[in-house]
């Protein structure tokens, strides 16, 4: 049934540190690599070597410019994937029972044998976490690497989602967000981890850690800038400046 569990014993999810992410897209590539050979149908590509390549990815990395009112603009790299919401609208809209949220760990999955490819779950998700596979005709989404995290066949250090394992900057963290003592929960508490689009009422499990505030730099670019370059009154430059001001009509 595509009704949601009342509560889940654990809330497995990701914490993504936007202060650390360097936008290298390694997580997206590692995700594509693992999930094309793992759970369910492979992640297909269309026109992969043509003019308009397109394909199914479960993780996408955006880059944004953020311009504070009084300060220099900064770039924030922003990985976007399924947030494994507690109140997941993608699950309840599913007419076939393909989408479900696991009571034991809160992971949201698609049973591809039941998916008819109507696409309504992708419409219901505000985060663009679900992409239709154009080859298999079923909906694909992040599985939180359910086939890695419980996999006794691989070394213990590899039993985390592929994106977390591969991130060279250590911007991605995996853990149980229901446990207040877990590393991820502590990180969220210390750094003010937040939900995306809280007004959607989805109660995401994944959290984002905001970029740390920049140290202001008075004379740097975006600060007071060139106007603040001082011209000491007693110097040759100061005399020249005053002389030019007279010619300028000041």
């Amino acid at each position, binding site marked *: *049934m*595509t*009704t949601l569990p009342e509560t889940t014993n654990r809330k497995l999810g990701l914490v993504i540190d936007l202060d650390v992410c360097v*936008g290298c897209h390694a997580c*997206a590539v590692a995700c594509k690599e693992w999930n094309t050979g793992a759970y369910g149908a492979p992640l297909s590509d269309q026109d992969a070597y043509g003019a*308009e*390549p*397109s*394909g199914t*990815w479960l993780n*996408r*990395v*955006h*880059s*944004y*410019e*953020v*311009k*504070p*009112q009084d*300060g220099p603009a900064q*770039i*924030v790299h*922003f990985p*976007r994937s399924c947030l494994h919401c507690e109140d997941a*609208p993608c*699950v*309840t*809209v*599913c*007419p*076939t*029972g393909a989408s479900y949220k696991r009571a034991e760990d809160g992971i949201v999955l698609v049973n591809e044998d*039941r*998916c*008819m*490819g*109507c*696409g*309504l779950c*992708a*419409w*219901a*998700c*505000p*985060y*663009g976490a679900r*992409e*239709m596979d*154009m080859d298999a*005709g079923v909906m694909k989404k992040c599985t939180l690497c359910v086939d890695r995290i419980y996999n006794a066949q691989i070394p213990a250090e590899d039993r985390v989602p592929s994106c977390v394992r591969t991130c060279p900057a250590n911007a991605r963290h995996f853990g149980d967000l229901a446990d207040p003592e877990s590393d991820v929960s502590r990180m969220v508490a210390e750094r003010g981890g*937040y*939900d*995306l*689009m*809280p*007004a*959607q009422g989805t109660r995401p499990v994944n959290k*984002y850690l*905001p970029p740390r505030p920049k140290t202001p730099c008075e004379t740097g670019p975006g600060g007071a800038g060139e106007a603040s370059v001082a011209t000491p009154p007693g110097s040759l430059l100061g005399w020249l400046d005053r002389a030019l001001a007279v010619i300028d009509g000041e």
Partner: protein
Amino acid sequence: MHPAFSVIVFTTLSGIGFGLMALLGLGFGVPGAGFQWSATIVAFAFAVIGLLSSVLHLRSKSRAILAFSQWRSSWLSREGVCSVVTLGLFGIYSLVLLLMGTRLAALGFAAAVLAMVTVFTTSMIYAQLRTVPHWASWITPAVFLGFSIAGGVLALSALLAISGAPSARMAAQWAMVALIVAWAAKAAWWRRAAETSLEAAGSGIGDATGLGVLGAVRPFEPPHTSPNYLMREMAFEVGRKRARALRRIAIACGAVAPFLLAGLAAYVGAAAPLLMLAVILHLVGMLAERWLFFAEARHAVGSFYGIGQSVARPSSQAA
């Protein structure tokens, strides 16, 4: 949102079909094999062609049968169940009426109620989506029900006129009333839509990224080089270019022309050809209206791509 032709055809045709079924179930037809057969066939044709069309947009059509299973949580599943039950009840009602000449009023009433419930469930597939602020309103079901009834009354009046029933004139008058009510709801829907934005719904780029608290957010580098499924499906820009022309077609064909033609049929005469033309024009107008319903609606996911933002500015949370 991407206006999939199969879904546009589905919502318009099945709306008219179920509207006509509701009226026939309530006993608004006239005795006589000619009318009874033609009305039943027309109602079934509209509803069934519409429902079959909805299957066309599925990527794995062979699993469509599973869509009847999740009625406890899913409006799409409820719509599937309600439409099949309605078709079944109306089918039995019609067979008994056509073959034995007995009108089972209670069964007809049940089919009529279920026909309207089906249209309501169709509308809720869209109205439930908080991700699309244009749709997430109780006015959406009002519009779907209004157009279903208006299309049904218009079709009923044409069928009555063709079979020479004197009640065709009164049906045409009721069609005028139904058109006014339905378009009043649509006018209210359009007025609300004009004031609705992703930012106002807390789904602009600042809230989507959560970076709006820091300053004005602008997409710098996209995550991929060519459009993907999300952009094709939910950040559809093309259909909006001709929005004003399509809105004029919707109003002219869907509202003004059928209203005037129904008026001529009711008060002047030559009802049958005028009302048939009214039904066809109304359908054209409805297709334009439904195209805009999809094409003009903006989905929250567009915010991540900087699509659908009125202006780049800090979110409401920014000091």
